[in-house]
């Protein structure tokens, strides 16, 4: 049901772990949902210099978090915020329809981490319209790019 590219990401995930002195942590999901995704960021100025994850969940959840952390490393916070779940799916090649929510979860985890970073810096979090383990969430307003 998964493509070879996704399987490679599942059997050999990148960026697994925590960042001890992380500048931001974002967590979404719950054990009841069967998915928990936690993303750790190291942010220097506006730039994500390190991204790691821990995920409890199915293969697509692991693959999505691995791919998402690879994608946002080196991005600015605004660029990372703009990463959509479709971008994650595209980077993975494909996900089965029933598993697309895992890519949504990855995007939500990134955004939760970015907002954690902003909150820690005394900034307003960017708006997240809705969230949930099965819902498509709306894009927040474009970040006031700095």
């Amino acid at each position: 049901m998964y493509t070879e590219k996704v399987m490679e990401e599942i059997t050999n995930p990148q960026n697994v772990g925590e960042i001890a002195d992380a500048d931001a942590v974002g967590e979404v999901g719950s054990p009841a949902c069967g998915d928990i995704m936690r993303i750790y960021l190291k942010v220097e100025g506006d730039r994500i210099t390190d991204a790691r994850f821990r995920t409890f969940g199915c293969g697509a959840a692991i693959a999505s978090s691995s791919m998402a952390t690879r994608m946002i490393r080196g991005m600015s916070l605004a660029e990372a915020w703009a990463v959509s779940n479709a971008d994650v799916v595209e980077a993975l090649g494909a996900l089965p329809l029933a598993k697309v929510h895992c890519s949504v979860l990855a995007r939500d985890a990134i955004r939760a981490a970015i907002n954690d970073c902003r909150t820690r810096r005394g900034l307003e979090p960017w708006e997240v319209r809705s969230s949930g383990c099965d819902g498509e969430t709306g894009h927040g307003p474009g970040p006031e790019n700095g």
Partner: protein
Amino acid sequence: MDHAATTFMKPEVLAAMAPYFSRYFGNPSSFYRFARESRKGVEEARGAVGAALGASTDEIFFTAGGSEADNWAIKGVALANRERGDHIITSAIEHHAVLHTCEWLEKQGFSVTYLPVDEFGRVDPGDVEDAITDKTILVSVMMANNEIGTVQPVAEIGKVAHDHGVLFHTDAVQAIGAVPIDVDAMGIDLLSLSGHKFYGPKGTGALYIRRGTRVENLVHGGGQERGRRAGTENVPGIVGLGRAIALATADIEGHNRRIAGMRDRLVRGVLDAIPDARANGHPTERLANNANFSFRYVEGESILLLLDARGICASTGSACSSGSSEPSHVLLAIGLSHEEAHGSLRLTLGDANTEEDVDHLLEVLPDVIGRLRQISPLTPISARMPEAD
């Protein structure tokens, strides 16, 4: 290691079927002599199924599988006995072929009691008795559970049902060749089975209906199966099912001894090697081939994927799809938390397995669980290996 999902077809079964695809292609309903061989093949298979269940040949009706047999038994009894009552009793851990059929009947105005099970997955016959009312027309409890392998006290449940004049149906799809069956001694009025679970062909099944039991037809049309189930017989499939059930029930005890030996070694090995793991189901009243585990902090599908990558086929009660996924109703019914139910693994052994397969599993599984626990945010630091960069 997923024999509860399906089995390979035995060469003897395939050989028995082969002539009925081409040489004996006659329609068993046809009048001419040429059709006789087809008819004979079907009737011999009926005899084999009857013999395996301790039933008469004329109480066996072929279907297109276990799900059809379950649907027919439950809907058929419900519709034929509606003037006597509208209440059905079943268990919370039935296969969906039973549960969804009961839910459909609820929409048609029937009422259904879904009995709970204990922590091992057993239905208490006393609960069955307590649930029976003067409106109860059917008790349907499976013989053995497909996920956790728990074998139900079928004979006791059958007795309770009969003491109250209620019909008793059992879904025996997982039990053929694993549990010795005698429909009279067990008080069974209807029994469903499926060919591909015991080395027979897919798309074949049968329903046993005790003589004199009032059951409405499910499939209407021609007069096949003595006017009870329309549709030209799947002759090769039926012949294969007959051959397969004869083979599967020839030496149940010997088969169970061999399979349970491997299974017990597997269970011990897994629990010894992997911390924070539990074996689900009944310690003794269980199918010889079934092992079901819960591993904390990890999710079932990812276990399956990593096992698959190492050449091991398994199954899980975790269904992570379309978002907020409900894990197995069976695992929740025996009292597991959502997290434990999501972290479940079912291994079901069979004739395709050897001791070497068990060795391979015991070598691979601890590593798979360890790797996933390394990834999981739920894993306590104490259960984690040092982080590599």
